[in-house]
């Protein structure tokens, strides 16, 4: 009983509020990946061409150019279905981490950086991209943590 009270003090929000915060973050992640995947599919040639110019992925560019939008769409589907939302968040974090790793690798080793982005991120520098991705990763981790905290309280 005492433990529950202490926990409730830490998480002042109601279950419903937590659920809606998680859902709000989910919507943000959805919008990001849906628009990104759409852009890559519609302008696939440009995307594929851009990747083929990157020396360390040159050989596999054609596969990566399809894998990335398909993976993004898969994450979108996972996030839409309430039962698979958690898995969706895990996949989202993994994918964003890979993208961030790619940007860091490009900044460290690539001779020149291709620029191909959409929506609000088109105005960002590469450092800005890293911060943007990190921000989204943090949001997704927060959503997972919030969901887990809610479940723990329910179990007690």
């Amino acid at each position, binding site marked *: 009983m005492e433990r529950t009270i202490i926990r409730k003090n830490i998480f002042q929000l109601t279950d419903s509020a937590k659920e809606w915060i998680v859902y709000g973050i989910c919507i943000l992640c959805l919008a990001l990946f849906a628009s990104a995947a759409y852009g890559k599919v519609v302008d696939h040639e440009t995307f594929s061409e851009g990747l083929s110019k990157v020396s360390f992925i040159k050989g596999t560019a054609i596969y990566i150019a399809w894998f990335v939008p398909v993976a993004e769409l898969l994450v979108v589907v996972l996030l*839409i279905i309430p039962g698979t939302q958690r898995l969706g968040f895990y996949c989202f974090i993994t994918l964003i981490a890979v993208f961030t790793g790619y940007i860091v690798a490009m900044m460290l080793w690539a001779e020149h950086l291709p620029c191909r982005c959409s929506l609000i991120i088109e*105005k960002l520098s590469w450092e800005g991209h890293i911060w943007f991705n990190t921000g989204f990763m943090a949001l997704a981790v927060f959503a997972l943590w919030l969901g887990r905290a809610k479940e723990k309280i329910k179990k007690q």
Partner: protein
Amino acid sequence: MKKLSLNIKKIALSLLVVGLAVGTQAFKNAEKVNDVTTYYYKLNSSGTTYTFMNSGTIPPSSVNCTSGIVDKCIVGFEEDQGAAFSRLPAPSDPRTYQSASNGYLP
């Protein structure tokens, strides 16, 4: 029953957001298509001068643009701006096209 109804609402709202995101992106892509002859210019590596690339209705590919934060890699004008012009001060004619990202063409 209440939970199911809430889930359906969430799925519907999610689909709406996906539709909006895709729609915005599609609208943005459509905006890029220009049916007026435009004079296209590329930014140099020092970010100081735009030089003439070509004129036409289809913007040149910005695939080879390398990153930079100064200004747009490729810009377009309805009026001919000559062989080259300084980025600053900007020409008095408004840009009718600009590439998606900042950068320059080597």
